């Protein structure tokens, strides 16, 4: 038995790695630059050299602090158009543009020179003394220089060049910038001229070692450091810690209720199979099972919670109960408020579990040993509860694995309809605010919970059914 559990736990590890991998791949592809989101600053064309340097420094510092200036994975398997040091370009958008240009022309060296020239040109622009007659022209050139960072198509870059040329022609006093500008232009022309398209199809592998983003992310996750929320810059763990109790409270009660009610219903409906009352129960359970819970929840909010119709229950999003309220008030108010969410959360799993229980029971009741038990004169109660019930629990136990993820999936709908500040509404809010650390932590969390559920189900299985032997037999 112990050996079996150990083996199951060992399988757990590769699964966890694959899931973490998936989560990480999705998270690195998230659009937008997290550092810019956190700095909440757009680097426009305005501002002087010192100010620009300060913002750049703040940007680089934060990037370093978040560990985003490291290579992404242990190794990279790419074509030869990019370089193994491309990750060192701090700005994600710049890097994407450069890699695209490098892919188009197949020569990273020239593209890197072009980038360098462009940066020089930009810092020259910022170093220009502020004069009334050239200020406007410089601002416009700065805008165009920004466009160069974001464009990879030859036609668009050429267009930007011609626009800058035009500004230079009409402002002869800007002649000092000509050198740097020509370097940019020739840099790009070199890229086009020295095309080496075969590089696209030559694979290379770069190794980076363990100091990479994935490694750090995974070790941080395992040690409980989930990152920082972009919205309010609090650690994700504390944000989740605030939301978790609400979800846990409702979901645990609903799981408990579902099992407590569903098992007897399932057993009873299987014993009296074919009678009208039991057929009504079965049909009712089937309908309950198919009723989408977000529909029922919406109907309840519309028709029972204030609004224009009945107001039997408090409207969603009611004020939290004050801390100094008397105990009985807190308790009664909490129960009063959780009746509807609990109902919506419970009924579907209740129907599902009792249908499974019924199926399992029917299966067992047709077996020979039940006939034997009846034949030897045991009364019906003993036959059902002592002989049949335990053996028909198997399918219900398997369900245990899917209960946790189902609870979290349910929390999205129920919490958002009833405005309960739990995990579901937290994740939804994070989704609309593009607050990725929270989303991906929830995803990892649910996956881990599911895996734990699977593990627990397997182990329970072994306890309930002695026929299942886990010694390695092929």
């Amino acid at each position, binding site marked *: 038995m112990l050996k079996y559990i150990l083996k199951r736990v060992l399988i757990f590890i590769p699964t966890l790695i694959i899931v973490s991998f998936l989560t990480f791949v999705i998270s690195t592809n998230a659009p937008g630059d997290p550092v810019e989101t956190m700095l909440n600053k757009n680097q426009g064309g305005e501002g002087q050299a010192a100010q620009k340097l300060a913002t750049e420094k703040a940007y680089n510092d934060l990037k370093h602090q978040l560990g985003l200036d490291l290579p992404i994975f242990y190794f990279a398997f790419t074509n030869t158009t990019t370089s193994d040091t491309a990750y060192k370009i701090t700005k994600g958008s710049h890097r994407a543009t450069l890699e695209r240009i490098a892919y188009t022309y197949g020569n990273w060296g020239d593209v890197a020179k072009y980038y360098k020239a462009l940066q020089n040109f930009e810092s020259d622009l910022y170093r220009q003394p502020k004069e009334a007659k050239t200020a406007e022209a410089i601002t416009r050139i700065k805008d165009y220089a920004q466009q160069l960072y974001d464009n990879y198509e030859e036609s668009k870059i050429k267009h930007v060049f011609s626009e800058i040329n035009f500004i230079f022609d009409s402002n002869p006093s800007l002649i000092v910038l000509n050198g740097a500008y020509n370097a940019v232009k020739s840099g790009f022309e070199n890229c086009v001229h020295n095309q080496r398209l075969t590089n696209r199809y030559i694979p290379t592998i770069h190794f980076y070692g363990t100091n990479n983003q994935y490694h750090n992310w995974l070790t941080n996750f395992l040690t409980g450091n989930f990152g920082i929320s972009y919205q309010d810059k609090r650690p994700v763990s504390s944000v989740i810690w605030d939301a978790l109790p609400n979800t846990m409270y409702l979901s645990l009660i609903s799981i408990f209720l579902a099992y407590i009610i569903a098992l007897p219903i399932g057993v009873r409906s299987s014993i009296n199979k074919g009678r009208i009352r039991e057929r009504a129960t079965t049909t009712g359970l089937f309908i309950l099972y198919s009723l989408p819970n977000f529909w029922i929840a919406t109907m309840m909010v519309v028709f029972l919670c204030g609004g224009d119709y009945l107001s039997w229950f408090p409207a969603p999003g009611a004020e939290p109960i004050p801390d100094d309220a008397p105990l009985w008030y807190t308790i009664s108010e909490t129960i009063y408020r959780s009746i509807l969410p609990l109902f919506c959360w419970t009924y579907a799993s209740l129907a599902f579990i009792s249908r499974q229980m019924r199926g399992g029971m029917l299966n067992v009741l047709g077996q020979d040993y039940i006939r034997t038990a009846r034949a030897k004169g045991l009364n019906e109660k003993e036959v059902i509860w002592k002989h049949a019930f335990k053996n028909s629990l198997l399918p219900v136990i398997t369900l245990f694995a899917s209960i946790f993820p189902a609870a979290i*999936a349910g929390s999205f709908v129920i919490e958002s309809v009833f405005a309960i500040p739990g995990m579901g509404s937290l994740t939804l809010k994070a989704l609309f605010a*593009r607050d990725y650390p929270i989303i991906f932590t929830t995803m990892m969390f649910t996956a881990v919970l599911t895996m734990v559920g699977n593990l627990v189900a397997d182990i329970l299985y072994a306890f309930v059914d002695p026929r299942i032997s886990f010694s390695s037999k092929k």
Partner: protein
Amino acid sequence: MSLFSFIKNPFKKRDTAIEIAHAHYDQSFWANVKKEFRKNKLAVFSLRFILFLTFIAITADFIANEKPFACGYKGNTYFPILKSYAVDIGIAKWPEDLKNAEWKDLQYDWSLFPLIPYLPKNIDGNNSQSVSPFETQNVKSTRWRHWLGTDELGHDVLAAMIHGTRIALLVGVISMFIASFIGIILGSLAGYFGDTRLKVSRASIISFSLFGVLGMFWAYGSRTYILRDALAQSFPSFIFQFLVSTCIFLAILMFARLLAYPFKSINYLRQKISIPLDIIISRLFEVMLSIPTLILIISVSAIVQEPNIFIVMVVIGLTSWTGIARFIRAELLRVRSLEYIESANALGFSEFRIIFRHAIPNALSPVLIAIAFGIASAILIESTLSFLGIGVPAETLTWGSLLSLARQTPTAWWLAIFPGFAIFITVTIFNLAGEGLTDALDPRNRK
């Protein structure tokens, strides 16, 4: 008696003499299933209802549309709905005066409008602010009435529901198509080969693993930007580019197969080792089951710039194939030891021919059950997502997004009841069909 003793032996199928002899008392597997299914009235009803929904989904443009079926306008006769299809394909053009026409307000000589003269995107400014179905509506005549009311902006709810049928069924069908494709292939490989039956020479293993990686690189890695641009452009063009990539990949694998051939003359490389396919694929099941579908879709739609219904379909399909794969694996474990497979082996048919021509067709029936339930749950997931406002573009009205409008205007009971009821009925019907199939395919129900 086992369920599959009814299965027709594929070799018998060709034997027409026997067929004719048996024609009088048709005991074929599917005939039995049909007979059992027909006994279940609810299941038959649900199947008919599915056909009805499919009909609505296909003809949605003809049931609810802003354009008339046919009309006379300035002396010419038009068939605007049919013409709009032609314009969409690109083989016809609208005349100048009809290009951006407000179809409702045109002065027709005569016109024949569909049953509901609205499209989901039409905004009826005279009836905005959620008009109830029973209220007096500000419309020209009863012909233009909003039978199920309108929403906040003035969209016709009935039109949105009719076109929502199309989205719901499309989600169910496409995602299950993807799921069954993956599930059937992986499940049958795991079931048929098990852990010991797939024996491959060392030369092939080396060649395939080397060119597998290189093939991925050349087919997908080097074409990343092409694929990405295609996705940004439109979903069909992405599918096309993806298929091109896959063809390149398969071509490279063919090349790898040829390349391994000469090396097989070396004794060491010729030796065959068995690949534990079943273990590998079963581990994959476990990983897939650990991934919470809803949260995965939420995360994926978080990183997609523009919400797209096709992405939801693909993700549902990619995560829900395990049920189908399990069914088919169990079936093939059983089928592979039947005599007819052995005889096919003895005749020297290739493994893949045996799997796809002989083994899988006899193992498909339980997959139908999984597909019926799968469609129900895919529709449920999609409507949950659009209810939460995820993954579906804001301007597309689906059943779920209509229902979510009821939260913003709690007085609009018609927004709470009708779309929710449509979701409920559709999900129930597919579940009922699945139940009916389960019973019909269950050998215990047979005498």
